[in-house]
């Protein structure tokens, strides 16, 4: 590993910055969103270069993929409203001041990066020595599900609250109805055909990525996002309709993950003397018991966040 990887890294860093500049500078919003999707793809490569194979698929799936799909949909819906009114454009002085401020912020952060302490502080050795107690083989999953499980529990709650927020934006007449427009299967059958091939493979890959997460890079967020993307794909191809948001089974599916997580967390008081503490003999079993419903709930939440608030009334 001589100078070649570094040349690759320098090129990649400049590409990331170039695409980011384009995302900010593009005149057309749709073009800016295309730039953002490319940005996410390049960041995924950066995460691989930073030896973070758990973060890379998260960036690919959520940061670029699902966020990209969401923003693309929004940019086409808002097309034609994206030219700022004359009074809205910031003046030259404001732009200059903003540029100066942002340069200072970037320079400060750059100085911090250059002045980071040597040797670098790290929790990797502690993560390594305690990992056998969790029964897991992947340190990042161990952090998410054991050492800092409360972060992950709260994160599922954040997703749920965001979904409640999105749903509450529905107008009265479609309250509790179906999200998004109804997509009809293309009469020529090209998109449905592709979806019929892709969705089963995608579901399989999603389950695989989730399952492998206990021993190797992967895990519930990455797997859940793939499952969610496949569901939304099937909706867009017209294979299935989005469920009405007032369905009882849907709501149960959404709260199952956080509820099981919380219940096992409370049981930790009885079993091991602290919230979210696992008795060592059952740690792996308990973690898997949490992960399965959490993955299903997260997949449902992500898909419905992309689908948006209800737009069609219940009949």
């Amino acid at each position: 590993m001589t100078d070649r990887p570094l040349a690759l890294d320098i090129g990649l860093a400049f590409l990331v910055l170039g695409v980011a500049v384009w995302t900010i500078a593009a005149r057309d919003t749709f073009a800016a969103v295309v730039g953002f999707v490319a940005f996410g793809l390049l960041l995924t490569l950066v995460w691989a270069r930073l030896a973070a194979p758990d973060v890379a698929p998260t960036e690919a799936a959520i940061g670029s993929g699902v966020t990209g799909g969401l923003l693309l949909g929004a940019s086409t819906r808002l097309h034609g409203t994206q030219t700022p009114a004359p009074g809205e454009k910031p003046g030259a002085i404001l732009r200059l001041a903003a540029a100066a401020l942002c340069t200072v912020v970037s320079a400060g952060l750059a100085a911090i990066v250059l002045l980071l302490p040597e040797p670098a502080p790290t929790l990797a050795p502690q993560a390594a020595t305690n990992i056998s107690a969790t029964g897991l083989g992947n340190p990042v999953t161990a952090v998410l599900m054991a050492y800092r499980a409360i972060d992950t529990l709260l994160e599922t709650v954040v997703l749920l609250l965001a979904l409640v927020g999105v749903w509450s934006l529905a107008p009265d007449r479609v309250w509790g109805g179906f999200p998004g427009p109804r997509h009809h299967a293309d009469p020529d059958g090209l998109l449905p055909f592709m979806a019929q091939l892709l969705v089963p493979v995608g579901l399989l890959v999603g389950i695989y990525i989730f399952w492998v997460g206990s021993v190797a890079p992967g895990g519930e967020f990455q797997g859940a996002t793939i499952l969610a993307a496949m569901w939304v794909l099937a909706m867009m191809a017209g294979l299935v309709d989005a469920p009405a948001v007032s369905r009882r089974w849907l709501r149960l599916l959404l709260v199952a993950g956080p509820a099981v997580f919380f219940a096992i967390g409370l049981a930790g008081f009885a079993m091991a003397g602290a919230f979210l503490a696992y008795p060592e003999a059952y740690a792996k079993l308990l973690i898997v018991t949490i992960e399965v419903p959490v993955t299903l709930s997260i997949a449902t939440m992500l898909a419905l966040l992309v689908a948006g608030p209800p737009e069609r009334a219940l009949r």
Partner: protein
Amino acid sequence: MSLALDVLTIVAVSAGAFFFLAGTVGLLRFPDALSRLHALTKADNLGLGLVVLGLLFQPEGLFAGLKLITVWLLTLLAGATVTQLIARTARPGGAQE
């Protein structure tokens, strides 16, 4: 044996990289949308296909090889669909549909 496999890897990956170059040049230089689509399809199908082929020569086990081929097939499927859908809206006469 290992040397021969490495040589095969290098040859196939180089050929794949060449097709990526060809696809990009086509995308930049060809005058109309349909021939640009043709160039893009070349890069998609052959470029990634040859890279995957080259990596298959490196001994990684059956499951890893299966995953490599799945990546290629998924890309083919997505590429073919998008190409078809764009081609339908980008007729030589213009972009109206």
